[in-house]
């Protein structure tokens, strides 16, 4: 390293707030480092200052709040995978965490890091979008709540201000008549960045779909909800004709590009197939 970046390692949230108020415009927050250190090592990230939040234990852990589950932003994928509360109430978040990197990454990477890093390929993001999660963001100015589905404003852009830090994610629990699905397509099972990633939450009564939330990653500048396909399926029968219509609609509704991992055509085709596969599993 030609020049050594500076770093502060606050040991309390208040100390972190003060640092962010003072240096937030120049400094980058680092949590588990599984994305930032790659960028720093390859010099694609030119950052001179870091605020290392790894010592903020108050941002770790999962808690049951009755109607909702609260997940601290520093909670690692391994902690999510092992949490009975998450296994029971947000099963698709466990599935997505298992597909992120391999054990070395799951032990260090954090849910908050995945969110704030704002990659359109973040594997946990479609799950949070499908659950209509909410984010808790803090600064010296106070704590505010933002709907996850309004958090991203464009490619790698979020509503966060330079002095703010993500504190937690809050999500409702899976309902008794609801199922959650997670599907990722990558070059191999471990270590792959997704070509497409999809999360679906669906409630049914008999063969009728009462409500359906469909979220996708790697097919647009940000994680997205397929609202057109959702409204096409809501209050409709789960039958081959409707599944076929949904397959065609979603492949048109998304906005993928061709890049190093895949092509636009492949992503449109596979998004349709992935949704059809999930809907067939419900029949």
């Amino acid at each position, binding site marked *: 390293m030609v020049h*050594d970046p500076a770093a502060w390692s606050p040991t309390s949230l208040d100390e972190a707030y003060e640092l962010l108020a003072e240096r937030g415009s120049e400094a980058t927050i680092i949590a588990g480092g599984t994305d930032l250190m790659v960028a720093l090592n390859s010099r694609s990230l030119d950052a001179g200052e870091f605020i290392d939040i790894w010592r903020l234990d108050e941002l770790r852990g999962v808690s049951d709040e009755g109607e909702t589950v609260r997940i601290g932003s520093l909670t690692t994928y391994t902690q999510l995978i092992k949490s009975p509360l998450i296994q029971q109430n947000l099963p698709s978040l466990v599935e997505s965490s298992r597909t992120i990197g391999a054990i070395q990454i799951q*032990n260090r990477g954090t849910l908050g890091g995945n969110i704030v890093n704002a990659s359109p390929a973040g594997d946990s993001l479609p799950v949070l979008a499908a659950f209509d999660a909410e984010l808790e963001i803090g600064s010296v100015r106070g704590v505010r709540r933002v709907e996850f589905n309004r958090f991203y404003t464009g490619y790698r852009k979020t509503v966060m201000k330079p002095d703010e830090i993500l504190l937690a994610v809050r999500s409702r629990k899976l309902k008794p008549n609801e199922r959650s699905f997670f599907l990722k397509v990558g070059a191999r099972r471990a270590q792959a960045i997704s070509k497409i990633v999809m999360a679906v939450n669906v409630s049914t009564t008999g063969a009728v779909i009462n409500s359906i939330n469909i979220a996708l990653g790697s097919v647009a500048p940000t994680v997205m909800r397929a609202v057109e396909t959702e409204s096409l399926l809501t209050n409709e029968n789960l039958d081959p004709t409707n599944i076929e219509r949904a397959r065609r609609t979603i492949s048109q509704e998304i906005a993928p590009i061709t890049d190093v991992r895949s092509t636009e055509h492949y992503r449109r085709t596979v998004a349709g197939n992935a949704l059809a596969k999930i809907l067939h599993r419900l029949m």
Partner: protein
Amino acid sequence: MKITFQINGVEREIDSPPMKRLLDVLREDLRLTGTKEGCGEGECGACSVIVDGEVINSCLAPICQMQGANLLTAEGLSRDGRLDPLQQAFLECGAAQCGICTPGMLISARSLLDANPRPTRDEIKEAIAGNLCRCTGYIKIIDAIEFAAGARR
């Protein structure tokens, strides 16, 4: 920044730039060159070490995050000149060819057996999914981990 941690059972204090990679501190400052650098981006697992009971990529961890941590590297596997059963098994099964992935494989396997002393073959594959080997085709590595688990019975 002054950082204190325990490594292979020994307390160490170092003074280092805070964002220096744990991998570089191990190899350059502490001369523990058993930990290898492969890709430098968290894909290959050659730099795997155990931190507070969990295997991580040391190329992705800045040293400022190691304050108070308990580290185990490949050098810490043998005790009093006696090889870890995994090291013995790798020798007996011919699980190393060029050798660059071996320290990371041993560390991931150690982490697995500490949590799960009798893993299935699929659990072994899952545990080393973050460790690439371009020589062996993995079969002998998986055999060796299975053998070591059996030897502990």
